[in-house]
């Protein structure tokens, strides 16, 4: 069974630029999550989707971050404009129920 796919794996941008990450969850998983993991810390939930609806985006900095999950499958996370403190690994996870399955993440460096 294919796992959660994410792209790109690495991205380097300058502050104030925009960036987008893509996630393809495991087929059939209704729930999709985006996490931000700053170096040396555990992942922090940004947003949770159930099918194509948002369950929780309370920790998403909505002034610069946005996310969508079209047709309840793939998802994109966008940052516009990026700040230095956005440097982190962005993890996508999908779930059929209790357990979450993580993708390899996108490492973002903001210069």
């Amino acid at each position, binding site marked *: 069974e294919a796992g*959660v796919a994410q792209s790109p794996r690495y991205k380097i941008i300058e502050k104030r630029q925009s960036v987008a990450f893509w996630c393809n969850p495991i087929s059939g998983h209704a*729930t999709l999550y985006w996490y931000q993991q700053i170096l*040396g*810390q*555990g*992942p*922090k*939930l940004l947003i*949770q989707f159930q099918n194509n609806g948002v*369950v*929780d985006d309370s920790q998403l900095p909505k002034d610069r971050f946005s996310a969508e999950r079209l047709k309840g499958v793939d998802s994109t996370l966008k940052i516009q404009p990026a700040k230095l403190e956005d440097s982190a690994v962005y*993890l996508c*996870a999908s*779930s059929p*129920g*209790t*357990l*979450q*399955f*993580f*993708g*390899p*993440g996108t*490492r973002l460096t903001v210069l």
Partner: protein
Amino acid sequence: SQQGEEDPQALSIQEGENATMNCSYKTSINNLQWYRQNSGRGLVHLILIRSNEREKHSGRLRVTLDTSKKSSSLLITASRAADTASYFCATTTSSGSARQLTFGSGTQLTVLP
């Protein structure tokens, strides 16, 4: 803020030794899970223990849960160099949204050959 805090932050042992990592959390939980993260990779689920369970085993892994102390421990027996990774505990809480994980800060385990 992080729900769980792991202790120690870093642990270095020799191959064949046992490794014990501890996790403390703040609020009532539905379950507690342990994940492993190899450098540059995503997280891999290791084991889940429910709030009404006290101990669980999976291969070389043993997890305990003490809800009165709001703490859990992960024991890896007969460690191998391949066990080198960061280990995170994560909780789902009674008051939080269903199926949401709150992660601790992790323990970096290094197993020396």
